[in-house]
Structures are given as C-alpha cells and as structure tokens.
C-alpha cells in the first residue's frame, strides 16, 4: 500500500491579483484563433440566400394589417354588417 501524503504545507488559496487576471485574460483571448478565418465569399452567399430583413417584414406586415382593419371597418359600416349594422331591438309593449 503506497503512502500518499494528503497534507498541504500552504494554507488557504493563492488568488492572483487583478493585474494577473487581466494579463491571463489577454493571453487566453490571444490564443483564440478561428480555424477558417475571414471568408468573404461565404458572406456574399449568405446575403444572397437570405430573404428580406426582419425590419422590412415587420413593417410590411404591420402596414398590411392596418389596411385590412381599415377596409373591414369601411365595408362593415357601409353594408351595415356585424356590430356596425342596425341591431334588432325587442320591444315589449304592455297592452
């Protein structure tokens, strides 16, 4: 049975200073290099294959919804349809 020393001679943990952490972060981030690197043709392909931007879609959809609602209101009120038409009222007369 081998002897394993499990006592540490130094107490507590040795935290690095903020300057050390800063230096370590810079060294770590410097080591992050992309495998492929810049790929401009891929950007052009993505731009060509993507549809209109969400901003254009939301604006168009909002405008279309507004037009539909206004048209429905105008048609409904012109033809006396639904809630915009004349409502039947029940009249009870006591004779």
């Amino acid at each position, binding site marked *: 049975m*081998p*002897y*394993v*020393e*499990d006592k*540490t*001679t*130094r107490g*507590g*943990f*040795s*935290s*690095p*200073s*903020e300057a050390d*952490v*800063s230096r*370590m*972060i*810079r*060294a*770590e*981030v410097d080591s*992050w*290099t*992309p*495998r*492929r*690197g*810049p*790929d*401009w043709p*891929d*950007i052009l392909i*993505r*731009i060509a294959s*993507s549809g209109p*931007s969400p901003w254009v879609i939301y604006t168009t959809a909002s405008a279309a919804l507004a037009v539909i609602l206004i048209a429905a209101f105008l048609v409904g009120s012109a033809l006396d349809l639904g809630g915009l038409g004349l409502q039947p009222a029940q009249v009870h007369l006591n004779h």
Partner: protein
Amino acid sequence: MTESRELDPATQFKQLYDQEYLSVYRSIRAVVMESAAAEDLTQETFVRAYRARHRYTPTAPPGAWLRRIGINLAISHLRRQKLARFLPARLYMAPDRRDYDRAEARDVVGKAMAVLSPKLRAAVVLHYYDGLTREEIASVLGVPAGTVASRIAKAVAIMRKTIGNDQDLDTTRSRSEGALRGR
C-alpha cells in the same frame, strides 16, 4: 478600435470585415465559449451588419457597432440553446453547452472563464482584452455603466477565486505525486 473609425460601413464594408473579423470573433467566442459556433455567429454578425449598413450612425466606432450586433446575436444563440434543453429530444437536438465548456476550456484561465456567465465574460473581455472603458462597454452591451462596473468586479472576484483554487489543487496534486515517486 479607434483605427476603424475612418472606415464607413456603407461604402467600405469589405475592408471593415477584414479589419474587424478577428476582434468580433473573439468577443463572440468569449460569450459562447465554443469556436465553431463563434465562427458561424461571426459570419452571421457581418451579414446582419451588411444589411443594416445604411442605418449605421457614426456616434460610436464601427468596431463597437459590430461587437454590439455580435454579442447580442451570441446571447440570443445561448438563449435558444437553453430553451432547446426543455424541448423533447425528438423535436430539437441541441448540443450540451457544458460539454463544450469542458472540451474547450482545458487550461486554468479557460476553465475560470467558463465558470462565468456569458454576460460577465463579455464585460471582462471587452474591458481587459479590447481595452474599452466602462462607458464604451455600456454602449456595446446596452446596459448602464454602473452595471458594467459591477459585472467586471464580480467576474474578477470569481476568476481570482477559481484560479486560486485550481492552482492550489495543482500544487497539492504535484506534491502528492512527488511523494509517491520519492518512495
């Protein structure tokens, strides 16, 4: 970041792409902690920036504008991944983020960074690596400068503790191994 000030995204987008690619990649990589996803998100960042290039207003350097798009995209990516964990496996097969963190963060600093939340990592990298001020980071992340200051302080405290613990563990382990070899 100041060297890209003169480049106009509307007319010099290709030059801006070549110049800012690596720094945008590293900012995104700090958030997602995974190189393949970071590369894909970097490309997507430039696609979105290209579409919005005519809406760019020169109140901030183009580099900060690109980082803001990239970091927001990376945080959305992580949110989708987190949400996907709650979906049934048959509907969506998302890779486990913790596997990425374990696989790619092999060294002490990488592990300490992996412990941080994505927002803390972004603040720390923008401050200590890109050298941005708290106000500049606030404009990139879209949060108040006070929030940035507290995020940086919290991140540094966590990293110091994690690195310190890890170094102590290594020291203990090497002493134990030394004791074993000596016998």
